[in-house]
């Protein structure tokens, strides 16, 4: 546990709902991230994955939002940390890239201006010094002719180049942790391949850990060392990516993998699909949240499922092992 860069313990995020109730978007989420590790958080829309990222960044600005549990970053507790201290971490130690590079960059400033701005917000560097680093970074991110690209506005660049600029900006202060929220969802498949390739190389070139948030099981399989499957704000399963894809333990993870049409091999006449849809956070059933859609649900699932250890996998399902172990 000594070498953990980041660890969340029982992280719960609740937002105020109607009539004074608190709606728990994320419940008792625990995971850890080692230096240079790529951890994938997968889940469908509404699973709470983006909310988790915003909570780490301290960017949930909904009035009345309540974050409980613990988030340790390099031994420092982030839950309840003051605004000023958080701001010093943001962009410098923990950086984030967003889904749509078109809307995530300010349209009225050049790419270079925006990257310079981040560098100069955290380091006392001259304008020229910051620009020199910006151009270096853009070049490292594979932006052709970085000197000219720095003087361009976001709308003048293609989607792929914008995302590279976005990553360059995120990496400009050498953060230890990079949070990537659906970084390739808005991109075409051939450009997605380039960006994923870039993300994989970050740990060598920049020594950064990456928290990759996505809905795409394929992206996780190809990019992440370890994976966390979220369902309706709860951990369904976590463990090494290879293990999870080879022997998914949770019925949800199994069904999710089976519902993806394969690109190779036998073409099934029908896809396995999960009946119904994920519950909204306000209507989440007690006990196992997957119970209403689970083909193996039984009476015991009305209790909160235990976290079962199987090899290196943690599975939130009573069926995962004969002898449940409390985690």
């Amino acid at each position: 546990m000594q070498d953990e860069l980041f660890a969340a313990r029982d992280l719960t995020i609740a937002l105020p709902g109607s009539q004074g109730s608190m709606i728990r978007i994320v419940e008792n989420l625990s995971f850890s991230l080692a230096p240079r590790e790529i951890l994938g958080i997968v889940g469908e829309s509404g699973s709470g994955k983006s909310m988790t990222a915003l909570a780490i960044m301290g960017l949930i600005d909904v009035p009345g939002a309540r974050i409980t549990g613990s988030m340790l970053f390099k031994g420092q507790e982030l839950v309840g940390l003051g605004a000023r201290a958080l701001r010093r971490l943001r962009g410098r130690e923990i950086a984030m890239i967003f889904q749509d590079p078109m809307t995530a960059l300010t349209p009225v400033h050049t790419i270079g201006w925006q990257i310079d701005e981040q560098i100069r917000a955290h380091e006392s560097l001259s304008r020229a010094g910051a620009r020199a680093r910006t151009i270096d970074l853009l070049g490292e991110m594979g932006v052709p002719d970085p000197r000219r690209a720095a003087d361009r506005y976001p709308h003048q660049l293609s989607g792929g180049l914008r995302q590279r600029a976005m990553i360059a900006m995120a990496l400009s202060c050498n953060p230890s942790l990079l949070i990537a929220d659906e970084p390739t969802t808005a991109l075409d498949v051939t450009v997605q391949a380039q960006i994923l390739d870039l993300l994989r190389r970050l740990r060598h070139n920049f020594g950064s850990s990456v928290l990759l948030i996505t809905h795409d099981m394929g992206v996780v399989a190809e990019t992440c060392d370890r994976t966390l499957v979220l369902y309706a704000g709860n951990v369904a399963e976590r463990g090494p990516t290879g293990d999870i894809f080879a022997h998914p333990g949770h019925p949800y993870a199994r069904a999710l993998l089976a519902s993806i049409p394969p690109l190779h091999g036998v073409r099934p006449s029908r896809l396995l699909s999960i009946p119904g849809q994920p519950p909204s956070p306000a209507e989440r059933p007690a006990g196992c949240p997957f119970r209403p859609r689970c083909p193996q649900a039984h009476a015991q699932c009305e209790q909160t499922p235990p976290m079962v250890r199987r090899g290196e996998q943690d599975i939130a399902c009573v069926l995962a092992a004969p002898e449940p172990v409390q985690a």
Partner: protein
Amino acid sequence: MTPIIEARSLGKHYRVAGGGLFGQSRRTLRALDNVSLHVMPGETLGIVGESGCGKSTLGRCLLRLTQSSSGRVLFEGEDITTRSERALRRLRPRMQMVFQDSYASLNPRRRIADLLSEPMRVHRQPSGAPHDRSFIAQRLRDLLDLTGLPISALDRYPHEFSGGQRQRINIARALALQPSLIVADEPVSALDVSIQAQIINLFTDLRETLGLTYIFIAHDLSVVRQIASSVAVMYLGAIVERGGTDSVLHAPAHPYTAALITAVPEPVVSAGARSRVILKGDVPSPVSPPPGCRFHTRCPKAEARCSVEIPALRPLVPAPDEALHEVACHYPLHPASNVPDRYATG
């Protein structure tokens, strides 16, 4: 047998505002360039490509929701390219479209019953008689049954449904007039994986029970593979490869198709690294496409000839299976391509 729909050298050009302070310069965007294809009854043609390749424009031009700039469209052998809107109305019930955004396609202020019965109130029966009330009521029940929606859905409004269910409503509406052809433009790409599988299965089931023909437009290769019997791959407004789904996806002949396939991240963790072709750069703008083969700027196999000469679609010889497999490349990945194009049609 007559193809249910056929496109001959279809082109679509848009005039777009160019640079300058007040957009005085205008340029031409070639969304479609010389596209020919045909779909036989009962077949499902998948059209794949990245954004800006013209696949949505093609779908709309085939149904004449957008007027093509050149070329012809034939529906069941009948030339509909220059038909008046009035004359088209007779054919409209037979060809329907399903869109990506399930919410934007449904009027939020109307109940599902109204949305589903509207096509029947607007159009007449093939015999020319209007649809009567009891027929519509029966048909609504059938449609809900076909698309797996509860009967209680009729009295509700679009916003009360999830994305997957709304897409079922869109499909039900498209089916209301018993069409023979459905063009589906990215119908599952806005849905979560588990819901996506439900809708793909629904498309498959409907094809079997109703004998439908689909043109299925998607950027997701694995979705297209699941549903299509043949595939056309588009790049910058042109078809670069087409043929039977298995043949094209398992033994692609065009370097672009090959790159597209290897670029898809697969939910499989393999021991060794997959051999993959990572293309350089982005798709060029369709406003100023590269000369010659439009893919040559990103092609790993491009040679001098590629930047000059536009390659025509030519069949692979010998044909890999009974379906024709054609490729538009000077240096395709599979042999026998340097044989003259015997089958090439205008």
